[in-house]
Every structure is written in C-alpha cells, then in structure tokens.
C-alpha cells in the first residue's frame, strides 16, 4: 500500500523538521490515527538513520521479550569467559605487534646491530623455551583429585565439569564450575584449582591468577597448592623471574605442596 505524493512530501517535511507548527500538529494528529502511516514514518526515520547522516541517534526501543534471550547470554558466565578470552587475545595481538620487524633491504648497514638483536632474540627464545618446557612437563593434571563425590554436588555440576575438563573442553568445564560456585556458598579449594587450571589453559591468565591467589589466601589445608599452580601459570606466561620468587616461597617450608619438585625446578631455572 503506498501513499499519495502529497503524503510523501509531508513525511519528508515532517522528518526534516520543515513544517510550520500548525502543520506539524495536524500531521501528528493524522499519524496518531493511522497506524499504517505511523509505520511508514518509522521506517523512513530508520532508513534515514541507517543510510544517511543523522545529528543524533535514537536507539531502537524494543520489546523486552525480544532481547530476553540475548540479555541472559550477555549476563552468563559463558559471555564473561568469552570476553576474558577476547581481552587476552587483544593483549597477545598487541604484544606481537610490538616486536620489531627488520626489512631485508635495511639490514646490510645495520648488520652488527641486527646480529646483536638476533642474539638477544635467540637468547630470549631459549629462555622462554625452558619456562614453557617446564610448564609442559607439569601440566598433565594427573595429580588432581577427582571431583566426583568430593563435595556436595546435587546438580552433578562438578561431575559434568570434570568430564569436560578431562576431555580438555575447558570452556564447557568452566561453565559448570562457575555455575557450581554461584550455587554453593562455601569455598571449595579443589573446585578453585580446577577453575584456575581451566582458565590458565584457555589463556585467561588474570582469572587464573585470581583463583590461585584466593586459594593461597584461604589458609586452608590445601592452600600451598596455590603457590605451585601459580608457578606453573607464571612459567606458561614466560615470566621466569616471578616464577622463581614463588618457587622460593614453596621451598621455604618443607610442608608445602611439591616442595622437592620446586627445588628441582629452581635449580633448572637458575
């Protein structure tokens, strides 16, 4: 159904704010009584916004039902994890970009400088290799106690999470663990460990660090495990210096988890 040319001119004038006060009021009355005309104006307004220049944007006003599902997604743990991973990716991208690139043509005059840079490059590469190699050695996660029937788990969230974890589906595992933590008020150290390791595996380092620090600060029986996994996290990030600091804490008390392993790694790193 289309309108007369006269109406189209009115629509255009109305949207461009070119009507006299009197005409505008009478046209608005017309709009109020004519749903089809109102819809036409709405689409025209939106088209103008989407394709043209608009001084100020009017956000789409939507029915809550339309956005309910989307909103609950944005509020979910899944979205939080996703956002975390994306932030990490953004950081990794920035770090990578900051590595200087040498153009072949320019290398000749700077041969000496370049070879020094190359030397440093190789040196830091090997250093990073040690850290990452150590991480690889210790990241089998076989030492973790099973979550099955370890804690109150009415909804089988931990059991399901553990299955995902063993299958290396860390994001799925985290969804279960996070739901568990939301439901269960009491702090369960072993769940924190599983969470921390899952975050570490997907590269969400700050979140992983938070879990391990919480464990350390909990002063519970297992809290020294926090130091061990924090060390692994630092090794994975290639932060040798900080890893050594934490290893020193572990080796300061023979009661600490993996006391002997920590001594071994310290020797290797120094």
């Amino acid at each position, binding site marked *: 159904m289309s309108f007369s040319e006269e109406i189209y001119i009115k629509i255009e004038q109305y949207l461009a704010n070119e009507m006299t006060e009197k005409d505008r009021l009478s046209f608005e009355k017309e709009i109020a009584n004519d749903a089809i005309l109102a819809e036409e104006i709405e689409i025209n307004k*939106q088209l103008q916004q989407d394709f043209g220049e608009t001084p100020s944007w009017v956000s789409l006003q939507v029915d809550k039902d339309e956005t309910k599902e989307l909103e609950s997604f*944005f509020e979910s743990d899944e979205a939080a994890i996703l956002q975390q991973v994306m932030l990490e990716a*953004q950081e990794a991208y920035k770090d990578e970009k900051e590595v200087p690139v040498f153009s072949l043509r320019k290398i000749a005059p700077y041969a000496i400088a370049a070879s020094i840079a190359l030397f440093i490059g190789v040196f830091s590469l090997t250093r990073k290799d040690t850290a990452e190699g150590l991480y690889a050695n210790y990241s089998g996660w076989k030492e973790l106690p099973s979550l099955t029937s370890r804690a109150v788990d009415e909804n089988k969230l931990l059991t399901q999470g553990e299955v995902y974890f063993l299958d290396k589906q860390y994001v799925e595992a985290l969804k279960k663990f996070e739901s568990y933590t939301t439901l269960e008020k009491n702090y369960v150290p072993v769940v924190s460990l599983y969470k921390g390791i899952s975050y570490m595996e997907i590269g969400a380092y700050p979140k992983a660090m938070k879990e391990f620090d919480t464990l350390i600060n909990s002063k519970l029986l297992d809290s020294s495990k926090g130091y061990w996994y924090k060390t692994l996290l630092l090794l994975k990030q290639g932060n040798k210096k900080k890893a050594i600091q934490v290893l020193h804490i572990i080796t300061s008390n023979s009661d600490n988890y993996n006391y002997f392993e920590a001594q071994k790694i310290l020797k290797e790193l120094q």
Partner: protein
Amino acid sequence: MKKNEYFLKGIQNTDKKVFIDIYKMFFPKVLKFVLNNKGQKEDAEDVFQKVLLQFSARMKVKEFTISSTFEGYIFTACKNLWRRELNKNKKRVTTDKDLEPIYDATEMSVSILEQERWEIYKEKFELLSDNCKEVLKMFFEKTAYSTIVKLLGYSSETVARQRVFKCKAKLTEMIKSDSRYKGLQTI
C-alpha cells in the same frame, strides 16, 4: 585466506588462537576507519570487541550464520556500530585500565537488533534497480533536489522528487512485508 568456517568454529569454541588471528587480520582496518572518523585507538578496540561479542551472541542464541565473508561482516558491523556510537554522542566511560570493560546487556542486545535491522534494509535496498539505489542514496545523504536533478539528469525537481518517492515506497513496502522486520518493530 582463511575460510569463514575457521573463524566461526573458533568463536563457537572460544578459541583464543582464532581470536588472535581475527585481531591480526581484521583489526587494523577497523582501527584505520575509527581513527579517520573522529575516534581514538581505544574506541576502535571497544567497538571491535563489542562486535565480536555480539557476533558470538547471535551465533549462540539465534543460530545465525553469515552469507558474506567473515571479514565483510566484521568490518561493516564495526562501521555501523561506530557510526551509532558517534551519533549517540555518548561519552566514553573511561575505566581503570586494569578493569575489564563491562558491557550493558540491554545495550548490547539492542545493538544486535539494530544490526539485524540494518541487514534487512541493506538486503532490500540491494534488490532495487540501479537507478533507484542511486537516487535514494543521494536522498539519504541529504543531497539537495537541485543537485540530484543536475547529477542524474532529471528534467525537473518535481520529476526527481517523484522518483525518490516511488523508490522509497518500493523499499518500505519490501521491508514491511519481510517477516523478520515484524520481530524488530519498535513499540
């Protein structure tokens, strides 16, 4: 060139490696666009992340797939979002650098619907004749009728005006009869 499937699967699985690739391949173009359009680097990062999040949400909640290339989608969506943000004149909330930006769930959802609406409009617009597209584009860009007459060779402003009305009527008719549009109507 990596295929759509690679990116879609990576997003589905929250694969950090794929996200790094997405940044490497597509972020520079978005950055350039934002910098050229009154924005800062932080704005580009913000828009890029929002679009990726919104894309994931559409995939997960609405079982959405793209018909264009992934690159095309991301770039257009970023462009649209940045235009909207600019026009909203909303001041960027500067948060502590160490804090993660927390996006408002409602705002993000509305933004998705705005993008969906834009996609329907664009799809219908492309169905118009070349002549209609040309004249409407000028109209939406607020080109004066006298200029349209000159550039497109119409005999008078009245003729140009009639042409615009006809093309616009056709476009709105197509939009209204699309079932997807019904779900996006304003209240």
